[in-house]
Protein backbone atom coordinates (compact mmCIF):
# COMPACT_ATOMS: atom_id res chain seq x y z
CA UNK A 1 0.00 0.00 0.00
CA UNK A 2 2.79 2.41 0.91
CA UNK A 3 4.47 1.91 -2.41
CA UNK A 4 1.25 2.51 -4.25
CA UNK A 5 0.55 5.79 -2.52
CA UNK A 6 4.15 6.85 -2.96
CA UNK A 7 3.95 6.20 -6.68
CA UNK A 8 0.63 8.03 -6.90
CA UNK A 9 1.95 11.07 -5.06
CA UNK A 10 5.11 11.19 -7.09
CA UNK A 11 3.09 11.92 -10.18
CA UNK A 12 4.57 9.13 -12.27
CA UNK A 13 1.11 7.86 -12.89
CA UNK A 14 -0.29 11.14 -14.15
CA UNK A 15 0.72 10.52 -17.71
CA UNK A 16 -0.71 7.07 -17.90
CA UNK A 17 -3.80 7.83 -15.89
CA UNK A 18 -6.25 7.90 -18.82
CA UNK A 19 -5.28 4.36 -19.73
CA UNK A 20 -5.70 3.08 -16.21
CA UNK A 21 -9.12 1.65 -16.80
CA UNK A 22 -7.96 -0.45 -19.72
CA UNK A 23 -4.59 -1.94 -18.69
CA UNK A 24 -4.64 -1.24 -14.96
CA UNK A 25 -1.07 0.09 -14.70
CA UNK A 26 -1.60 0.27 -10.95
CA UNK A 27 -1.23 -3.49 -10.70
CA UNK A 28 1.50 -3.40 -13.30
CA UNK A 29 3.67 -1.26 -11.06
CA UNK A 30 2.88 -3.45 -8.12
CA UNK A 31 3.68 -6.56 -10.12
CA UNK A 32 6.95 -5.12 -11.33
CA UNK A 33 7.87 -4.32 -7.75
CA UNK A 34 7.12 -7.88 -6.65
CA UNK A 35 9.03 -9.36 -9.58
CA UNK A 36 11.93 -7.09 -8.72
CA UNK A 37 11.91 -8.24 -5.11
CA UNK A 38 11.76 -11.93 -6.07
CA UNK A 39 14.63 -11.39 -8.48
CA UNK A 40 16.64 -9.61 -5.81
CA UNK A 41 16.21 -12.51 -3.38
CA UNK A 42 17.31 -15.05 -5.99
CA UNK A 43 20.31 -12.87 -6.79
CA UNK A 44 21.22 -12.80 -3.10
CA UNK A 45 21.10 -16.60 -2.88
CA UNK A 46 23.15 -17.16 -6.02
CA UNK A 47 25.43 -14.20 -5.41
CA UNK A 48 26.32 -15.35 -1.90
CA UNK A 49 27.52 -18.74 -3.13
CA UNK A 50 29.70 -17.19 -5.82
CA UNK A 51 31.02 -14.62 -3.36
CA UNK A 52 31.91 -17.31 -0.80
CA UNK A 53 33.53 -19.73 -3.26
CA UNK A 54 35.20 -16.98 -5.28
CA UNK A 55 36.64 -15.25 -2.23
CA UNK A 56 38.06 -18.41 -0.67
CA UNK A 57 39.57 -19.58 -3.98
CA UNK A 58 41.04 -16.13 -4.60
CA UNK A 59 42.64 -15.89 -1.17
CA UNK A 60 43.66 -19.51 -0.79
CA UNK A 61 44.62 -20.99 -4.16
CA UNK A 62 48.22 -19.84 -3.84
CA UNK A 63 48.58 -21.12 -0.28
CA UNK A 64 47.81 -24.82 -0.52
CA UNK A 65 50.73 -26.51 1.18
CA UNK A 66 50.18 -30.21 0.59
CA UNK A 67 53.08 -31.45 2.74
CA UNK A 68 51.74 -29.54 5.74
CA UNK A 69 48.25 -30.82 5.05
CA UNK A 70 49.14 -34.54 4.87
CA UNK A 71 48.37 -35.33 8.56
CA UNK A 72 44.85 -33.83 8.49
CA UNK A 73 44.17 -35.42 5.09
CA UNK A 74 45.18 -38.85 6.45
CA UNK A 75 43.04 -38.39 9.55
CA UNK A 76 40.12 -37.37 7.37
CA UNK A 77 40.52 -40.53 5.27
CA UNK A 78 40.58 -42.70 8.42
CA UNK A 79 37.51 -40.92 9.73
CA UNK A 80 35.56 -41.35 6.50
CA UNK A 81 36.62 -45.01 6.34
CA UNK A 82 35.40 -45.83 9.84
CA UNK A 83 32.28 -43.68 9.56
CA UNK A 84 31.16 -45.17 6.25
CA UNK A 85 32.39 -48.68 7.06
CA UNK A 86 29.96 -48.81 9.97
CA UNK A 87 27.05 -46.67 8.81
CA UNK A 88 26.71 -47.94 5.23
CA UNK A 89 26.16 -51.68 5.94
CA UNK A 90 23.90 -50.94 8.92
CA UNK A 91 22.00 -48.25 7.04
CA UNK A 92 21.45 -50.45 3.99
CA UNK A 93 20.33 -53.32 6.23
CA UNK A 94 17.86 -51.06 7.98
CA UNK A 95 16.52 -49.71 4.69
CA UNK A 96 16.10 -53.27 3.36
CA UNK A 97 14.11 -54.19 6.43
CA UNK A 98 11.91 -51.10 6.11
CA UNK A 99 11.29 -51.46 2.39
CA UNK A 100 11.38 -55.22 1.72
CA UNK A 101 9.96 -56.71 4.90
CA UNK A 102 7.81 -53.92 6.27
CA UNK A 103 4.13 -54.51 6.62
CA UNK A 104 3.55 -50.98 7.93
CA UNK A 105 3.70 -52.43 11.42
CA UNK A 106 4.34 -50.64 14.67
CA UNK A 107 8.03 -51.50 14.57
CA UNK A 108 8.50 -49.80 11.19
CA UNK A 109 6.76 -46.69 12.46
CA UNK A 110 9.11 -46.71 15.43
CA UNK A 111 12.14 -47.13 13.14
CA UNK A 112 11.05 -44.21 11.00
CA UNK A 113 10.51 -42.10 14.10
CA UNK A 114 13.95 -43.06 15.44
CA UNK A 115 15.64 -42.25 12.14
CA UNK A 116 13.95 -38.85 11.94
CA UNK A 117 14.87 -38.00 15.52
CA UNK A 118 18.46 -39.12 15.02
CA UNK A 119 18.65 -36.93 11.91
CA UNK A 120 17.42 -33.95 13.94
CA UNK A 121 19.98 -34.29 16.75
CA UNK A 122 22.53 -31.47 16.32
CA UNK A 123 26.12 -32.53 15.79
CA UNK A 124 27.30 -30.90 19.02
CA UNK A 125 25.10 -33.32 20.98
CA UNK A 126 26.67 -36.24 19.11
CA UNK A 127 30.00 -34.77 20.18
CA UNK A 128 28.88 -34.41 23.79
CA UNK A 129 27.62 -37.99 23.82
CA UNK A 130 30.64 -39.40 21.99
CA UNK A 131 33.07 -37.68 24.32
CA UNK A 132 31.39 -38.90 27.48
CA UNK A 133 30.52 -42.39 26.22
CA UNK A 134 33.31 -43.50 23.87
CA UNK A 135 36.14 -41.33 25.18
CA UNK A 136 35.47 -41.40 28.93
CA UNK A 137 33.14 -44.29 29.81
CA UNK A 138 34.64 -46.81 27.36
CA UNK A 139 38.11 -45.36 28.11
CA UNK A 140 39.10 -44.99 24.47
CA UNK A 141 40.53 -41.51 25.18
CA UNK A 142 40.50 -39.01 22.32
CA UNK A 143 41.06 -41.05 19.19
CA UNK A 144 40.04 -41.47 15.59
CA UNK A 145 38.01 -44.60 16.43
CA UNK A 146 35.85 -42.66 18.92
CA UNK A 147 35.37 -39.95 16.30
CA UNK A 148 34.53 -42.50 13.62
CA UNK A 149 31.95 -44.24 15.81
CA UNK A 150 30.34 -40.89 16.59
CA UNK A 151 30.11 -39.75 12.97
CA UNK A 152 28.84 -43.20 11.95
CA UNK A 153 25.84 -42.66 14.24
CA UNK A 154 25.48 -39.16 12.87
CA UNK A 155 25.26 -40.11 9.17
CA UNK A 156 23.23 -43.29 9.74
CA UNK A 157 19.87 -41.55 9.09
CA UNK A 158 21.18 -40.15 5.80
CA UNK A 159 22.20 -43.61 4.59
CA UNK A 160 18.90 -45.17 5.69
CA UNK A 161 16.80 -42.45 4.04
CA UNK A 162 18.64 -42.40 0.70
CA UNK A 163 18.82 -46.20 0.46
CA UNK A 164 15.13 -46.43 1.25
CA UNK A 165 14.37 -43.96 -1.55
CA UNK A 166 16.61 -45.92 -3.92
CA UNK A 167 14.94 -49.24 -3.07
CA UNK A 168 11.53 -47.68 -3.65
CA UNK A 169 12.46 -46.84 -7.25
CA UNK A 170 13.13 -50.51 -8.08
CA UNK A 171 9.95 -51.72 -9.86
CA UNK A 172 7.91 -54.38 -8.06
CA UNK A 173 7.89 -56.42 -11.29
CA UNK A 174 11.64 -57.09 -10.85
CA UNK A 175 10.96 -58.71 -7.50
CA UNK A 176 7.96 -60.63 -8.80
CA UNK A 177 9.93 -61.94 -11.77
CA UNK A 178 12.79 -63.05 -9.58
CA UNK A 179 10.50 -64.77 -7.07
CA UNK A 180 8.56 -66.40 -9.90
CA UNK A 181 11.81 -67.88 -11.20
CA UNK A 182 12.17 -69.62 -7.88
CA UNK A 183 14.71 -67.32 -6.23
CA UNK A 184 14.48 -66.92 -2.48
CA UNK A 185 13.73 -63.57 -0.90
CA UNK A 186 17.36 -63.06 0.14
CA UNK A 187 18.78 -63.82 -3.29
CA UNK A 188 16.14 -61.56 -4.83
CA UNK A 189 17.27 -58.75 -2.56
CA UNK A 190 20.98 -59.35 -3.04
CA UNK A 191 21.02 -60.20 -6.75
CA UNK A 192 18.11 -58.18 -8.14
CA UNK A 193 16.96 -55.35 -5.91
CA UNK A 194 20.28 -54.06 -4.55
CA UNK A 195 22.13 -53.95 -7.91
CA UNK A 196 19.35 -51.89 -9.47
CA UNK A 197 19.40 -49.53 -6.49
CA UNK A 198 23.17 -48.99 -6.50
CA UNK A 199 23.24 -45.51 -8.09
CA UNK A 200 20.78 -44.20 -5.52
CA UNK A 201 22.67 -45.82 -2.66
CA UNK A 202 25.90 -44.34 -3.99
CA UNK A 203 24.41 -40.85 -3.90
CA UNK A 204 23.63 -41.39 -0.23
CA UNK A 205 27.14 -42.63 0.44
CA UNK A 206 28.62 -39.55 -1.25
CA UNK A 207 26.30 -37.29 0.74
CA UNK A 208 27.46 -38.98 3.95
CA UNK A 209 31.11 -38.69 2.91
CA UNK A 210 30.62 -34.96 2.45
CA UNK A 211 29.01 -34.65 5.86
CA UNK A 212 31.83 -36.53 7.59
CA UNK A 213 34.52 -34.50 5.82
CA UNK A 214 32.79 -31.25 6.71
CA UNK A 215 31.93 -32.17 10.30
CA UNK A 216 33.71 -30.30 13.07
CA UNK A 217 31.70 -30.14 16.31
CA UNK A 218 31.21 -33.89 16.76
CA UNK A 219 34.80 -34.72 15.79
CA UNK A 220 36.86 -32.26 17.77
CA UNK A 221 35.22 -33.40 21.01
CA UNK A 222 35.84 -37.10 20.27
CA UNK A 223 38.97 -37.38 18.12
CA UNK A 224 40.83 -34.49 19.70
CA UNK A 225 42.90 -31.86 17.95
CA UNK A 226 46.41 -33.35 17.90
CA UNK A 227 48.25 -32.32 14.76
CA UNK A 228 50.31 -35.19 13.38
CA UNK A 229 50.25 -38.29 11.25
CA UNK A 230 48.11 -40.84 13.14
CA UNK A 231 49.82 -44.20 13.87
CA UNK A 232 46.55 -46.09 14.02
CA UNK A 233 42.88 -45.55 14.79
CA UNK A 234 43.61 -45.36 18.51
CA UNK A 235 45.66 -42.19 18.15
CA UNK A 236 44.22 -38.72 18.30
CA UNK A 237 44.13 -36.61 15.18
CA UNK A 238 42.47 -33.62 13.59
CA UNK A 239 40.57 -33.85 10.33
CA UNK A 240 40.83 -31.19 7.65
CA UNK A 241 37.70 -29.40 8.91
CA UNK A 242 38.94 -29.41 12.52
CA UNK A 243 42.33 -28.23 11.26
CA UNK A 244 40.66 -25.30 9.51
CA UNK A 245 38.70 -24.49 12.66
CA UNK A 246 41.84 -24.54 14.84
CA UNK A 247 43.73 -22.33 12.38
CA UNK A 248 40.84 -19.87 12.21
CA UNK A 249 40.47 -19.82 16.00
CA UNK A 250 44.18 -19.47 16.77
CA UNK A 251 44.48 -16.78 14.13
CA UNK A 252 48.23 -17.35 13.76
CA UNK A 253 48.31 -18.03 10.05
CA UNK A 254 45.27 -17.12 8.02
CA UNK A 255 47.15 -18.00 4.83
CA UNK A 256 47.39 -21.61 5.96
CA UNK A 257 43.74 -21.47 6.92
CA UNK A 258 42.78 -20.24 3.44
CA UNK A 259 44.83 -23.07 1.92
CA UNK A 260 43.01 -25.65 4.06
CA UNK A 261 39.66 -24.03 3.23
CA UNK A 262 40.35 -24.24 -0.52
CA UNK A 263 41.23 -27.93 -0.26
CA UNK A 264 38.13 -28.66 1.82
CA UNK A 265 35.93 -26.71 -0.57
CA UNK A 266 37.53 -28.46 -3.56
CA UNK A 267 36.78 -31.90 -2.12
CA UNK A 268 33.16 -30.92 -1.42
CA UNK A 269 32.75 -29.51 -4.95
CA UNK A 270 34.18 -32.74 -6.44
CA UNK A 271 31.80 -34.88 -4.37
CA UNK A 272 28.90 -32.70 -5.51
CA UNK A 273 29.97 -33.12 -9.10
CA UNK A 274 30.22 -36.92 -8.75
CA UNK A 275 26.76 -37.23 -7.20
CA UNK A 276 25.39 -34.92 -9.90
CA UNK A 277 26.89 -37.15 -12.62
CA UNK A 278 25.40 -40.26 -11.00
CA UNK A 279 22.00 -38.62 -10.71
CA UNK A 280 22.17 -37.60 -14.36
CA UNK A 281 23.06 -41.15 -15.43
CA UNK A 282 20.21 -42.47 -13.32
CA UNK A 283 17.58 -40.36 -15.03
CA UNK A 284 18.81 -41.39 -18.50
Amino acid at each position, binding site marked *: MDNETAIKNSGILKYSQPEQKLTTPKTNYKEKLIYGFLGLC*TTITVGFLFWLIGYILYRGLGHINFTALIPPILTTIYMVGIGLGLSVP*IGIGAAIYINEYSLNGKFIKLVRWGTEC*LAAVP*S*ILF*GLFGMMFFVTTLKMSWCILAGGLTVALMVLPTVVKTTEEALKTVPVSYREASLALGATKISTIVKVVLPSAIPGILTGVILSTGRIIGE*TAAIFLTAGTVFGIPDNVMSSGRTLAVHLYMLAKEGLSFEEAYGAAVL*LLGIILCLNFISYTIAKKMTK
Partner: protein
Amino acid sequence: MENKSINITTVMEKIMKGVFWGCAAISIVAVLFIGGFILFNALPFFSHTSLWSFLTGKNWIPSGEIFGIYPMLVASFFATLGAVVIGVVVGISTAIVITSILPPAISSVISKIVDLLAGIPSVIYGFFGLMVIVPIIKLTGAPSGGLSLLAVIIILSFMILPTIIRMTEVSLKAIPKEYKEGAYALGATRLQYIFKVQLRAAKSGIIAGVMLAIGRALGETMAVMLVAGNSPVVPNSILSSVRTVTANIAMEMSYAPAGPHQQALFATGLVLFIIIMAINIGMQLIVKRMERN
Protein backbone atom coordinates in the same frame (compact mmCIF):
# COMPACT_ATOMS: atom_id res chain seq x y z
CA MET B 1 19.34 -84.09 0.82
CA GLU B 2 16.83 -81.78 -0.78
CA ASN B 3 14.96 -81.32 2.47
CA LYS B 4 18.14 -80.37 4.21
CA SER B 5 19.08 -77.72 1.68
CA ILE B 6 15.62 -76.23 1.91
CA ASN B 7 16.03 -76.13 5.64
CA ILE B 8 19.36 -74.37 5.31
CA THR B 9 17.89 -71.75 2.99
CA THR B 10 14.93 -71.09 5.26
CA VAL B 11 17.27 -70.80 8.22
CA MET B 12 19.46 -68.41 6.23
CA GLU B 13 16.38 -66.39 5.31
CA LYS B 14 15.41 -66.14 8.94
CA ILE B 15 18.91 -65.20 10.02
CA MET B 16 19.19 -62.49 7.37
CA LYS B 17 15.79 -61.14 8.29
CA GLY B 18 16.99 -60.98 11.87
CA VAL B 19 20.15 -59.14 10.81
CA PHE B 20 18.13 -56.57 8.86
CA TRP B 21 15.78 -56.22 11.82
CA GLY B 22 18.78 -55.55 14.04
CA CYS B 23 20.08 -52.88 11.67
CA ALA B 24 16.67 -51.20 11.67
CA ALA B 25 16.52 -51.30 15.46
CA ILE B 26 19.87 -49.51 15.81
CA SER B 27 18.44 -46.06 14.98
CA ILE B 28 15.81 -46.41 17.70
CA VAL B 29 18.34 -47.71 20.21
CA ALA B 30 20.81 -44.96 19.28
CA VAL B 31 18.40 -42.07 19.70
CA LEU B 32 17.03 -43.42 22.98
CA PHE B 33 20.52 -44.18 24.26
CA ILE B 34 21.93 -40.76 23.34
CA GLY B 35 18.95 -38.99 24.91
CA GLY B 36 19.05 -41.22 27.97
CA PHE B 37 22.80 -40.85 28.35
CA ILE B 38 22.64 -37.06 28.25
CA LEU B 39 19.72 -37.08 30.72
CA PHE B 40 21.57 -39.47 33.04
CA ASN B 41 24.67 -37.27 33.06
CA ALA B 42 22.67 -34.06 33.49
CA LEU B 43 20.34 -35.11 36.31
CA PRO B 44 22.88 -34.97 39.18
CA PHE B 45 23.43 -31.30 38.31
CA PHE B 46 19.94 -30.33 39.40
CA SER B 47 20.78 -31.15 43.01
CA HIS B 48 23.49 -28.48 42.71
CA THR B 49 21.40 -25.83 40.94
CA SER B 50 17.65 -25.94 40.58
CA LEU B 51 16.22 -26.15 37.07
CA TRP B 52 14.58 -22.76 37.49
CA SER B 53 17.73 -20.93 38.54
CA PHE B 54 19.67 -22.78 35.83
CA LEU B 55 17.29 -21.52 33.14
CA THR B 56 16.90 -17.99 34.50
CA GLY B 57 20.34 -17.39 36.03
CA LYS B 58 22.06 -14.49 34.31
CA ASN B 59 25.59 -15.45 35.30
CA TRP B 60 27.78 -18.23 33.98
CA ILE B 61 30.90 -18.40 36.12
CA PRO B 62 32.21 -21.98 36.13
CA SER B 63 35.13 -21.15 38.47
CA GLY B 64 32.64 -19.86 41.05
CA GLU B 65 30.28 -22.75 40.38
CA ILE B 66 27.55 -20.36 39.25
CA PHE B 67 25.67 -21.75 36.30
CA GLY B 68 22.88 -19.84 34.58
CA ILE B 69 22.16 -20.27 30.87
CA TYR B 70 19.69 -17.41 30.47
CA PRO B 71 22.19 -15.37 28.37
CA MET B 72 22.75 -18.32 26.03
CA LEU B 73 19.03 -19.01 25.68
CA VAL B 74 18.43 -15.36 24.76
CA ALA B 75 21.32 -15.40 22.27
CA SER B 76 20.15 -18.63 20.62
CA PHE B 77 16.59 -17.34 20.47
CA PHE B 78 17.45 -14.07 18.76
CA ALA B 79 20.05 -15.64 16.46
CA THR B 80 17.53 -18.24 15.30
CA LEU B 81 14.70 -15.72 15.02
CA GLY B 82 16.77 -13.31 12.93
CA ALA B 83 18.14 -16.03 10.69
CA VAL B 84 14.72 -17.59 10.14
CA VAL B 85 13.10 -14.25 9.26
CA ILE B 86 15.77 -13.50 6.63
CA GLY B 87 15.93 -17.11 5.49
CA VAL B 88 12.16 -17.39 5.05
CA VAL B 89 11.84 -14.17 3.02
CA VAL B 90 14.84 -14.84 0.77
CA GLY B 91 14.30 -18.62 0.62
CA ILE B 92 10.61 -18.63 -0.28
CA SER B 93 11.18 -15.90 -2.88
CA THR B 94 14.02 -17.90 -4.45
CA ALA B 95 11.87 -21.05 -4.46
CA ILE B 96 9.04 -19.16 -6.20
CA VAL B 97 11.44 -17.90 -8.85
CA ILE B 98 12.83 -21.42 -9.39
CA THR B 99 9.47 -23.19 -9.61
CA SER B 100 7.21 -20.74 -11.38
CA ILE B 101 9.02 -17.86 -13.02
CA LEU B 102 12.28 -18.80 -14.71
CA PRO B 103 12.45 -21.21 -17.68
CA PRO B 104 13.36 -24.76 -16.58
CA ALA B 105 16.88 -24.62 -18.03
CA ILE B 106 17.91 -21.68 -15.83
CA SER B 107 15.95 -22.97 -12.83
CA SER B 108 17.83 -26.25 -12.85
CA VAL B 109 21.14 -24.36 -12.74
CA ILE B 110 19.94 -22.36 -9.73
CA SER B 111 18.75 -25.61 -8.12
CA LYS B 112 22.28 -27.02 -8.51
CA ILE B 113 23.66 -23.88 -6.87
CA VAL B 114 21.29 -24.33 -3.94
CA ASP B 115 22.48 -27.94 -3.63
CA LEU B 116 26.05 -26.71 -3.48
CA LEU B 117 25.13 -24.22 -0.78
CA ALA B 118 23.71 -27.12 1.24
CA GLY B 119 26.91 -29.16 0.87
CA ILE B 120 29.37 -26.52 2.07
CA PRO B 121 30.70 -27.46 5.53
CA SER B 122 29.66 -25.26 8.43
CA VAL B 123 33.26 -24.51 9.36
CA ILE B 124 33.72 -22.87 5.94
CA TYR B 125 30.66 -20.69 6.53
CA GLY B 126 32.16 -19.74 9.87
CA PHE B 127 35.57 -19.04 8.39
CA PHE B 128 34.05 -16.89 5.63
CA GLY B 129 32.02 -15.06 8.25
CA LEU B 130 35.11 -14.45 10.35
CA MET B 131 37.21 -13.20 7.46
CA VAL B 132 34.59 -11.24 5.49
CA ILE B 133 31.36 -10.51 7.37
CA VAL B 134 32.95 -9.70 10.75
CA PRO B 135 35.35 -7.06 9.33
CA ILE B 136 32.43 -5.42 7.51
CA ILE B 137 30.45 -5.24 10.78
CA LYS B 138 33.56 -3.90 12.51
CA LEU B 139 33.35 -0.84 10.23
CA THR B 140 30.14 0.18 12.01
CA GLY B 141 32.14 0.53 15.20
CA ALA B 142 30.77 -2.54 16.95
CA PRO B 143 32.16 -2.82 20.50
CA SER B 144 33.49 -6.37 20.13
CA GLY B 145 35.31 -5.87 16.83
CA GLY B 146 32.48 -7.18 14.69
CA LEU B 147 32.08 -10.51 16.47
CA SER B 148 28.39 -10.14 17.16
CA LEU B 149 24.83 -11.39 17.12
CA LEU B 150 24.44 -9.72 13.73
CA ALA B 151 27.29 -11.77 12.24
CA VAL B 152 25.69 -14.94 13.63
CA ILE B 153 22.32 -14.03 12.11
CA ILE B 154 23.84 -13.32 8.67
CA ILE B 155 25.83 -16.57 8.54
CA LEU B 156 22.96 -18.68 9.91
CA SER B 157 20.45 -17.24 7.46
CA PHE B 158 22.59 -18.38 4.54
CA MET B 159 23.16 -21.78 6.13
CA ILE B 160 19.44 -22.47 6.45
CA LEU B 161 18.54 -21.10 3.00
CA PRO B 162 18.96 -24.44 1.16
CA THR B 163 16.63 -26.22 3.62
CA ILE B 164 13.87 -23.64 3.18
CA ILE B 165 14.30 -23.40 -0.61
CA ARG B 166 14.28 -27.20 -1.04
CA MET B 167 11.18 -27.79 1.07
CA THR B 168 9.30 -24.86 -0.48
CA GLU B 169 10.27 -25.98 -3.99
CA VAL B 170 9.05 -29.53 -3.37
CA SER B 171 5.72 -28.43 -1.91
CA LEU B 172 5.12 -25.79 -4.60
CA LYS B 173 5.75 -28.39 -7.30
CA ALA B 174 3.34 -30.81 -5.64
CA ILE B 175 0.36 -28.51 -6.19
CA PRO B 176 -2.02 -30.12 -8.73
CA LYS B 177 -2.06 -28.54 -12.18
CA GLU B 178 -5.82 -28.01 -11.93
CA TYR B 179 -5.28 -25.27 -9.35
CA LYS B 180 -3.24 -23.29 -11.83
CA GLU B 181 -5.67 -23.84 -14.67
CA GLY B 182 -8.57 -22.91 -12.44
CA ALA B 183 -6.91 -19.72 -11.21
CA TYR B 184 -5.93 -18.65 -14.71
CA ALA B 185 -9.41 -19.45 -16.02
CA LEU B 186 -10.82 -17.12 -13.39
CA GLY B 187 -8.60 -14.39 -14.76
CA ALA B 188 -5.85 -14.40 -12.16
CA THR B 189 -2.43 -13.09 -13.14
CA ARG B 190 0.65 -15.23 -12.54
CA LEU B 191 1.54 -13.42 -9.33
CA GLN B 192 -2.02 -13.61 -8.07
CA TYR B 193 -1.94 -17.36 -8.67
CA ILE B 194 1.43 -17.74 -6.93
CA PHE B 195 0.59 -15.74 -3.84
CA LYS B 196 -3.11 -16.41 -3.43
CA VAL B 197 -3.34 -20.04 -4.55
CA GLN B 198 0.00 -21.83 -4.82
CA LEU B 199 1.65 -20.56 -1.62
CA ARG B 200 -1.51 -21.11 0.41
CA ALA B 201 -1.95 -24.65 -0.87
CA ALA B 202 1.71 -25.43 -0.11
CA LYS B 203 1.49 -23.96 3.39
CA SER B 204 2.09 -27.13 5.44
CA GLY B 205 5.15 -28.16 3.46
CA ILE B 206 6.65 -24.72 3.77
CA ILE B 207 5.98 -24.65 7.52
CA ALA B 208 7.66 -28.06 7.86
CA GLY B 209 10.68 -26.67 5.99
CA VAL B 210 10.82 -23.63 8.26
CA MET B 211 10.75 -25.84 11.36
CA LEU B 212 13.54 -27.97 9.94
CA ALA B 213 15.47 -24.76 9.38
CA ILE B 214 14.80 -23.61 12.95
CA GLY B 215 16.26 -26.89 14.19
CA ARG B 216 19.33 -26.46 12.02
CA ALA B 217 19.89 -22.88 13.14
CA LEU B 218 19.48 -23.76 16.83
CA GLY B 219 21.85 -26.72 16.56
CA GLU B 220 24.60 -25.07 14.55
CA THR B 221 27.80 -24.79 16.52
CA MET B 222 31.11 -24.24 14.76
CA ALA B 223 30.08 -21.52 12.30
CA VAL B 224 28.39 -19.68 15.14
CA MET B 225 31.35 -20.04 17.50
CA LEU B 226 33.74 -18.47 15.00
CA VAL B 227 31.72 -15.27 14.57
CA ALA B 228 29.80 -14.84 17.85
CA GLY B 229 32.49 -13.56 20.20
CA ASN B 230 31.22 -16.04 22.81
CA SER B 231 30.91 -13.86 25.91
CA PRO B 232 28.27 -15.36 28.21
CA VAL B 233 26.33 -12.16 28.87
CA VAL B 234 22.81 -11.13 27.95
CA PRO B 235 23.16 -9.18 24.65
CA ASN B 236 21.94 -5.58 24.83
CA SER B 237 22.13 -4.90 21.10
CA ILE B 238 22.45 -6.70 17.81
CA LEU B 239 26.12 -5.72 17.77
CA SER B 240 27.03 -7.28 21.12
CA SER B 241 29.11 -10.39 21.46
CA VAL B 242 26.97 -13.42 22.30
CA ARG B 243 27.32 -17.08 23.21
CA THR B 244 24.72 -19.55 22.00
CA VAL B 245 23.59 -22.69 23.82
CA THR B 246 25.56 -24.89 21.41
CA ALA B 247 28.73 -22.82 21.67
CA ASN B 248 28.51 -23.04 25.45
CA ILE B 249 28.93 -26.82 25.24
CA ALA B 250 31.61 -26.77 22.55
CA MET B 251 33.70 -24.06 24.24
CA GLU B 252 34.08 -25.71 27.60
CA MET B 253 33.44 -29.43 27.19
CA SER B 254 36.98 -30.39 26.26
CA TYR B 255 38.49 -29.01 29.46
CA ALA B 256 35.64 -29.05 31.97
CA PRO B 257 36.60 -31.19 35.00
CA ALA B 258 34.23 -33.93 36.10
CA GLY B 259 31.82 -32.49 38.64
CA PRO B 260 29.28 -29.68 38.59
CA HIS B 261 30.88 -27.92 35.63
CA GLN B 262 30.72 -30.96 33.35
CA GLN B 263 27.24 -31.79 34.62
CA ALA B 264 26.17 -28.21 33.87
CA LEU B 265 27.31 -28.68 30.27
CA PHE B 266 25.29 -31.89 30.06
CA ALA B 267 22.31 -30.00 31.46
CA THR B 268 22.85 -27.42 28.70
CA GLY B 269 22.87 -30.29 26.21
CA LEU B 270 19.69 -31.67 27.74
CA VAL B 271 17.91 -28.33 27.31
CA LEU B 272 19.03 -28.21 23.66
CA PHE B 273 17.98 -31.84 23.11
CA ILE B 274 14.50 -31.21 24.51
CA ILE B 275 13.98 -28.06 22.43
CA ILE B 276 15.14 -29.78 19.22
CA MET B 277 12.97 -32.83 19.87
CA ALA B 278 9.94 -30.65 20.57
CA ILE B 279 10.46 -28.84 17.25
CA ASN B 280 10.98 -32.15 15.47
CA ILE B 281 7.82 -33.72 16.88
CA GLY B 282 5.88 -30.59 15.97
CA MET B 283 7.19 -30.90 12.44
CA GLN B 284 6.27 -34.58 12.19
CA LEU B 285 2.72 -33.73 13.30
CA ILE B 286 2.46 -31.09 10.57
CA VAL B 287 3.78 -33.48 7.92
CA LYS B 288 1.29 -36.12 9.07
CA ARG B 289 -1.56 -33.66 8.79
CA MET B 290 -0.29 -32.70 5.36
CA GLU B 291 -0.24 -36.33 4.22
CA ARG B 292 -3.78 -36.84 5.43
CA ASN B 293 -5.12 -33.92 3.39
